[in-house]
């Protein structure tokens, strides 16, 4: 039993992966940790999935690629994790693909725990605990967001809705550049930032977890102009 915080006591782990062999393997790791594995045979809708999860005693392990088999899920794991996180369900994303791609990075604010399958046995419980604490408002040093200055050095229109910015977050690292992709439909100010940096680098603000150890752990939200 994983005690996270009152009134939650995780006893079961829901297993999400489009391969039943992998789900079964997750199940062994969960049993070894003294918890009860629950197989999720398919995801018809996020609403239905959330409805089937007991927020009191369930945590979730979710794989990233869920669309390899057409009947399992209509969306990939990073979107499932985001939805479950927002619903207050402790969840971690399990993937072999490191460094994470731009799709995962764009949801990093709502993916506190990103583990490889090799790390699952030793880090599963602490990861779910961290997620639950964060959902209560208690962030680790690496995940706590701070309003900070960002130097935008360049912008590139990736598609009609996506702009990729090359930024430096001096509060995190004085010179290491980081790529951030923003959807204009979700972050309308991205268009203004792009226009501003067309005449040279510009400075903006956002909430960033500047305690992160690596660039792939950074997330950005609440962008604003200086």
């Amino acid at each position, binding site marked *: 039993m994983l005690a996270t915080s009152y009134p939650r006591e995780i006893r079961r782990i829901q297993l999400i992966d489009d391969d039943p062999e992998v789900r079964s393997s997750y199940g062994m790791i969960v049993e070894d940790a003294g918890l009860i594995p629950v197989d999720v045979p398919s995801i018809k809708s996020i609403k239905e999935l959330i409805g089937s999860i007991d927020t009191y005693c369930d945590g979730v392990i979710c794989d990233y690629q869920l669309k390899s088999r057409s009947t399992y899920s209509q969306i990939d794991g990073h979107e499932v994790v985001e939805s479950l996180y927002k619903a207050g369900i402790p969840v971690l994303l399990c993937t072999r693909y490191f460094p994470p791609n731009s799709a995962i990075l764009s949801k990093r604010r709502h993916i506190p725990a990103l583990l490889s*399958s090799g790390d*699952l046995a030793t880090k599963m419980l602490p990861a779910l605990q961290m997620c639950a604490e964060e959902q209560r408002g208690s962030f680790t040093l690496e995940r706590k967001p701070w309003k900070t200055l960002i130097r935008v050095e360049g912008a590139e229109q990736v598609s009609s809705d996506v702009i990729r910015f*090359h930024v430096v977050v001096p509060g995190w690292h004085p010179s*290491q*550049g980081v790529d951030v992709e923003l959807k204009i439909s979700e972050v309308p100010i991205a268009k203004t930032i792009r226009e501003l940096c067309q005449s040279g680098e510009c400075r903006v603000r956002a909430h960033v977890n500047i305690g992160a150890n690596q660039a792939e752990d950074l997330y950005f939200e609440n962008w604003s102009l200086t």
Partner: protein
Amino acid sequence: MEKTHIRFSPRILARLGEELNQGADQSILELIKNAFDADATKCTIELSDTAASGGSIRVHDNGRGMDAAGIRDGWLVLGSSEKTPLKKTKLGRTPAGNKGLGRLAALRMGKVVSLASVKENNSRRLHSVRIDWELFDGANTVEDVKLEIKSEKNTKRQKGTWIELTDLKSALRSEDVKKLARAALLLTDPFGDKKSGFTVVLKAPEFSDVEKLVRQKYFDDADYHLQASVNSRGIAQANILDWKGEVLAACSHDELRADKQRFKCPPSTFDFWVFLLKTQEFLSARKARTADIRAWLSHFGGVHVYQDGVRVFPYGNPGDDWLQLNLARVRSPEERPSTNNSIGRISIENEGAYPLTQKTDRSGFIEDDAYNELTEFAKSSLDWMARWRLGRAEDRRRAQRKHAAEEPRKEEQNFETALKAAPEKLQRSLKEAFNFYAKTRDREADALRKEVQLYRTLSTAGIIAATFAHESHGNPIKVIELNVTSLKGRISRNVPADHRSKLLDPLAKIEKSVSALATLGSATLSLVNSRKRRVGRVDIHNCISGIYSLLTPFFKGRDADIALRLAPASPYIRGSEAAVESILANLIDNSLRAFRRDSTENRLIQISTEIKESICEIRVADSGPGIRDVKPSDVWLPGVTTEPEGTGLGLTIVRDTVSDLGGSIYLLSGGELGGAEFVINLPILGA
């Protein structure tokens, strides 16, 4: 109780005037627009002594003019205007100015402004007013300064308005005058064939130069003319015409817009001319010289916008690429125009359900949904033209490849014919020389074909590996890892200690093998990651560390080690991570192969960096056998390899990539560790 009213500080004049001012050219342009709105057929601007401050500007038009009431209730009331886009003038013009503020910036260019006006149908009276702005500076409120409108008998002047700005606060540079000339001439769409009936004359030397360029229209010399339109119901269509005006391609609304939604923007037409500025093509078929067209395009290239016949600033100004033509060209340079070789015009009839609104500071349209839809219409049209041109380019290439096979035979026949005309005693030696040349050329062509095929094969292997990495690298390996982990734990918990090693040892071997197997997939995916191919700032040391981590299982698996000795700095370049990684990965692979070939016992690779001013020197040295069985200068040649199954491309790729990054590379046969040592010098932007 005291009755009062809101009053304005004189500073409001600066706020609304100077602070909304886009520049001297835009300020004066507002006065020209006022003349247009007054149905003038001619507007003349005279500049006197404007190279320094203290000069003057006179603007005269032959429009409808104003009487005292018109001056008092119209011209002197700022922020209000009778003009509305819905009500056209007597000459049928849609008013260009309607915010009542535009002229203020111009009027405040000088310390004093004088206005005189004669109204049509009442030319016996001349009305005038003089404003000394310094009086406002000393007043508490704007209302405290009284102005006097004089009316006197007029015998000399025709209808119209004269505005004089005297004692200018700043000089007008030649550049400002050129911008004014350009803006004035472009104001009422001189690109079209229809005449607006409105002429602007700027009495300044710069004007005639610009006017000459405007008058010289080169539209007939364009290679492609895109003609697109969207009607009042939001349905669009487009054609591509050649320089003769013949239709090359046409498309319907559904082809322009993938989601088939109507465009929610005002009815508009989009004309766009593309010039292929390749000298040979031009001289063979066109009248104009390439240099003249380049000069014309450098002044007027870009896409301009006209709303109801009047140009909207700043669309199409030099440096304004609002449709991102240059960005699209960078991303896909083939068959895409840039602002240097194209010119366009979008004409908007600003009516209907989705009108556009200009910003008060005249910096363009408010970027609302209607504006976005208009932009989407223009970009969709350009994208369609680009796709069509790409398709034609591909057809041309296929035809060329087909003809390339036939060309040598034809040339050989031509040669045989020419040979027969040569003196008989020379024919044999000429034939022998030709045959020798032909054989050499055939060998070269053969080698190139093999190289191309090899590149295609390697690319296909990469594509297949990346596509199926999930199947080979994701799930099966994940299942093995998870089950091995679980087994280790269960064995430790349930099996007596003295029996555990029998079970744990084979598991350790499985784990090690799985790790090596997993590396192939992750390394492949990492190397082909599209983000790595993007050009931007690249930290060299980060790349080196990344490749080291990525390839660790490979070189450890071959009992080799890599030592990193990196300079205490963070050198960075402008390039792609993929480029730097390909250099390092190929050099490391080269060393590992050398170790295997030579059965080297002590297998060490060393990667070191040193910063020398604006150069980062990267050295990759190994303890292998050095360069043997091939000349050092030949190692860079494609296809040269000492391995039976080798591609011979690795070092060619390294050399070409270093060159693309602006650097140089050379090889030391006996390096620091006794084997080969490659020295790369890359110019850096910083460290």
